[in-house]
């Protein structure tokens, strides 16, 4: 039978009665022609010639602007560029131009991942080869051969690395990089939208250290950044680097026609408004595309879902395409595995990829025609990034977002305008998070002693230095604060994981040849790697035989079971300090420091096909203590009388459920980064309270952003509950917790209405 092309498959989707009834909205984004300008006269003729050789005879307007501002005027620029819009030239042109003019000139490139750096090195080296110039560009990461490291340090014109490497291998050894730091003309930070939350806050501090070392060696580099579409690219670039920026947001790249399809699985239980799972719909759609040999990428939010879909698809197409043609891709895979997949995609040996958002970044993986999202990815920016995976360059492409039953998904899919017209989110970081700050002040002092009166890129750290001297880490002497400890501080600080230490996952299925198959942060490990947990990796089920909490090792063995595990976390929360507070007539919102005690207590075994609970077991892990920021809404005693104790409890749980979904959208974070806890009697005030807290010690600005944006968040909560077609509350809105009864939906709405009315009065007053 002849294979169908994308156009034919799309017609099938539109015409098949079953499929088309599930399509809530079919949005077509028309193609866009390029906007260009000619090469400026100032562009080095060798560079011009090399570009012309590659068929580039003029520049997109954003590239031209970057060259003018950062190349000629030495201003910091941040360019907002969608996937595949030629962003690389935004920084490669000014950098190469400066090196052509002065062979001593150096540039440092930061990419969020190693894979991305590898990719960019090949592109850079092709351009250099076309010019026939002796310009050396290298990647410097954990895989770099020891033999070549010295050459890179001494003679690399362009050094491409990642923040982790800069943090632990370059800055603490800056004396070996003198020629780079003395001549550092440009610092390129690609994909800055990925630097948010904990990782972004850490990276901002690494950049403070970088600037400090550059200044010590007498250079003041120009920053060139690129970002995907977010609401605050300039603000983010400025917070990340502590420098003023010129924003380039007019994009001149052309775009192919895109079809954005909002697909809602059918309702299977009218009264409870329960829909068929997104996963099974994705299975069906993906296998159709794959059977037509249409390269398809499937995104899913959690690792578990990725593994479930992967197993299913591999099984399905095994006979037609061979088992290797469908691959999984996620952060936990080791680098070598990931690169093999990337290569397979490029050559076409791999037809389909199932990925978590690890592949969101701009790694060039060749052309994929279809992008399938298993549920809303959690943020508008993320959704566009994933959509950009389909139809790179100017081909027609199809994006299908298959909704989950969760409140946000249902809200998004039923009001596509909200998604299509909504401004993308802001990326938040908090470089002054005290714990992160102290970690990097330590690293900075190791690199170079602090002088009296010296700030950390503008931050007064006198008290931190005092504290570190008391802790006998620093030694004040004369006018300086010296590192005086036998440790290597960067080794104790990980930029990526929320907790300081990761748990290593060891497969001991083969006696005598145990091997490491991945790692996971400590907080997640509490609920995913406890004893007897089922852990999925590359579609293979493993059972945790032992979680050695002291040694941070999880020993797993391959198993074949019909269930997965799901653990519960018990949380106790105390307010330590109230920093900000707004009083309203019948409620209070506040923001401050809290202490959270979390303990994994019990896990359930859930059958894969029916989601029935088929067993449970205890978890014996110590309590984890967390000092962090939180914001909270609390109600006075009268509210309890007004509502009735039981009804108010229902309303609190309902609202907390909705907030759990809406708040992360507003502050651009993962749902697991911002926890929501309702309490009928909060320890600090004995009042009914809903807490929202940052999962990272000290907070990274999420709950403070929630505090500021409470009005809009509550507004969204109300719209979400209202737009849900269920009668008395369902998993898509206030939840279907066993503690909730039929009134929960209306009680939650009533509570939100109180909150909103109050806010309006506040605004008028």
């Amino acid at each position: 039978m002849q294979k169908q092309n994308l156009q034919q498959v799309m017609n099938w989707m539109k015409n098949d009665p079953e499929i088309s009834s599930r399509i809530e909205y079919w949005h077509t984004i028309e193609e866009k022609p390029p906007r260009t300008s000619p090469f400026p006269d100032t562009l080095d003729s060798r560079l011009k010639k090399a570009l012309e050789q590659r068929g580039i005879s003029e520049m997109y307007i954003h590239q031209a602007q970057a060259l003018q501002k950062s190349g000629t005027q030495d201003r910091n620029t941040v360019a907002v560029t969608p996937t595949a819009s030629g962003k690389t030239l935004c920084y490669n042109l000014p950098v190469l131009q400066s090196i052509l003019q002065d062979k001593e000139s150096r540039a440092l490139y930061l990419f969020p991942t190693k894979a991305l750096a590898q990719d960019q090195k090949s592109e850079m080296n092709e351009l250099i080869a076309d010019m026939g110039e002796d310009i050396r560009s290298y990647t410097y990461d954990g895989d770099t051969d020891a033999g070549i490291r010295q050459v890179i340090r001494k003679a690399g014109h362009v050094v491409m690395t990642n923040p982790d490497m800069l943090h632990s291998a370059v800055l603490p050894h800056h004396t070996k990089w003198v020629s780079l730091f003395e001549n550092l003309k440009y610092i390129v930070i690609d994909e800055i939208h990925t630097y948010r939350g904990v990782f972004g806050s850490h990276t901002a501090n690494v950049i403070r250290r970088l600037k400090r070392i550059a200044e010590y060696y007498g250079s003041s580099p120009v920053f060139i950044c690129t970002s995907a579409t977010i609401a605050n690219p300039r603000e983010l670039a400025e917070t990340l680097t502590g420098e003023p920026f010129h924003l380039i947001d007019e994009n001149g790249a052309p775009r192919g026609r895109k079809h954005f399809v909002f697909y809602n699985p059918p309702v299977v239980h009218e009264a409870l408004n329960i829909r068929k799972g997104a996963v099974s719909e994705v299975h069906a759609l993906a296998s159709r595309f794959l059977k037509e040999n249409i390269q398809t990428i499937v995104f899913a939010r959690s690792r578990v879902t990725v593994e479930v879909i992967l197993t299913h698809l591999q099984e399905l197409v095994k006979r037609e395409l061979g088992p290797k043609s469908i691959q999984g891709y996620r952060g936990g895979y080791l680098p070598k595995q990931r690169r093999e997949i990337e290569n397979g995609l490029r050559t076409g040996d791999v037809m389909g990829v199932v990925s978590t958002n690890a592949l969101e970044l701009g790694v060039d993986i060749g052309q994929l025609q279809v992008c399938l999202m298993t549920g809303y990815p959690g943020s508008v920016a993320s959704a566009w990034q994933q959509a950009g995976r389909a139809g790179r360059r100017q081909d027609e492409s199809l994006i299908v977002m298959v909704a989950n039953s969760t409140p946000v998904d249902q809200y998004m899919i039923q009001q596509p305008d909200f998604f299509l017209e909504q401004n993308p989110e802001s990326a938040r970081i908090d470089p002054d998070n005290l714990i992160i700050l102290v970690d990097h002040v330590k690293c900075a002092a190791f690199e170079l002693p602090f002088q009296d009166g010296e700030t950390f890129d503008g931050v007064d750290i006198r008290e931190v230095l005092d504290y570190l001297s008391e802790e006998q880490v620093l030694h004040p002497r004369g006018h300086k604060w010296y590192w005086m400890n036998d440790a290597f501080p960067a080794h104790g600080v990980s930029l990526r994981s929320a907790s300081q230490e990761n748990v290593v996952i060891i497969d001991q299925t083969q006696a005598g040849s145990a091997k490491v198959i991945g790692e996971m942060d400590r907080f997640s490990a509490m609920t995913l790697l406890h004893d007897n947990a089922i852990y999925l990796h590359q579609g293979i089920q493993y059972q945790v035989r032992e979680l050695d909490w002291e040694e941070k090792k999880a020993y797993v063995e391959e198993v074949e079971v019909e269930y997965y595990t799901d653990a519960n976390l018990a949380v106790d929360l105390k307010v330590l300090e109230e920093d900000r507070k707004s009083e309203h007539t019948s409620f209070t919102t506040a923001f401050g420091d809290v202490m959270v005690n979390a303990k994994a207590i019990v896990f359930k075994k859930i059958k894969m096909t029916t989601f029935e609970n088929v067993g449970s077991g205890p978890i014996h892990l110590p309590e984890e203590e967390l000092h962090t920021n939180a914001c909270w809404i609390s109600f006075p005693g009268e509210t309890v009388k007004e509502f009735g104790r039981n009804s108010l409890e229902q309303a609190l749980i309902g609202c907390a459920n909705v907030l759990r979904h809406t708040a992360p959208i507003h502050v651009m974070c993962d749902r697991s980064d911002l926890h929501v806890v309702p309490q009928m009697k909060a320890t600090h005030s004995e009042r009914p309270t809903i807490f929202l807290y940052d999962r990272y010690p000290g907070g990274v600005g999420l709950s403070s952003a929630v505090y500021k944006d409470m009005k809009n968040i509550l507004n969204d909560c109300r719209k979400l509950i209202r737009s849900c077609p269920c009668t008395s509350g369902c998993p898509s809105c206030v939840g279907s917790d066993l503690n909730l009864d039929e009134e929960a939906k209306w009680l939650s709405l009533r509570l939100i209405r109180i909150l909103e009315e109050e806010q309006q009065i506040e605004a008028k007053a």
Partner: protein
Amino acid sequence: MKQKHKLKRMKHHMSHDGAETSAEPEQEKNQQQEGRQDIPFQAEWEEMNAVPLYLDDQYVLRREIQYSLDYRYGSRRLGDIFQVFRRWAQETADHPLKPDGRRPQDLLFFDTETTGLNSGAGNMIYLLGGAWLSEDCVHVTQYFLPGPESEAAFYYHFLTEMEHSIHHLATYNGKAFDWPQVKTRHTFVRHEVPKLPEFGHFDLLHAARRLFKRVLPSCRLSVVEEEILGLHRENDTPGYLAPMLYFDYLKEQNPVFIKGVIGHNEQDVLSLISLYIELSERVLEGGTTPEETYEIGRWFEQMKEWNKASWCYHKAIRTSREWNAVYVYALALVLKKQKQMAEALPYLVSVWQNRGKHAADAAVELAKYMEHELKDAEKAFHYTEEAYTLSRNTDLRDDLEKRRRRLSGKIRPGKSFI
């Protein structure tokens, strides 16, 4: 203050790995630092033979001790180094321990003490110790950093005064640790002090590993001292305490805290002289046991000193109580390299016939010789078969398979062999 409270509260989220200092934080000492003459605990320093040297407003302490050439450190007299140099001068073969025109007076036996064991920028050197020779005695000169603010003075005086001998260092693991760390810290003061010379030296750890790796549980200097130099240090301050003791000293300023470290460093540099003599003599003698002799032979072989190597292997075979295939096979190979195949042949045959270690390798060598030199395909085929039977290595078996196929083509059909 708010930040202070927070710091206290979040203390357990912030770990400061590494050394805890042992001393309680003390009140400020009454330090009079008027003028150049007064440094804290000057009398105590003087008692330790240390004097301050100044550079602008910084100072560093230099400690000097002399030993007579007859001083015995372990089994060796320090002055024996002159004799060893004379012996080296008569040696024609090249060797990494060979002084090559240098006099004993040219060397600096060198060791450092640091604030940590990592190689990062923040790991500071606080003691540069060296032992050097004049015609009539051994000098130990140590430069001590009285505080982190004095590094310019520290390196200035060390580099100026040791200008000559610093070109010829003898260290223990200095190539990988001490010298790179000197370079790192030198970078911070490079505009204020003389340039660092290029690095050329004897790393005695390398030599010790060559000779003693198989017989000692570890090649740490203390182990080598005890087992090889027959030396036991009394009341020695272990090296790993060096960072903590320095932190204590910094707080108290009293040299009593680092006296032990300074003594330890002094012993280390003297020990290097003894060790150099010991190692040199063993190499020049061709080893004290068959195993050592064999290792020395391998070292010469690596230097492409074939004559010396085969001399050592001969000696190992001669002195070994039992016949040893490893030595014999090594000798055969080195003879082959010298194009003395006729001499090598009986050794190869004996290794093959013994059917023990290297038997397969010896058979391969014999096969190659038969095929390429003697053009005797049948004998070559025979040895290939032998090698195949004796071999357990699959790679080698694959090679042999090819060789066998090639050879069977060369053998005239119908004719049997042996």
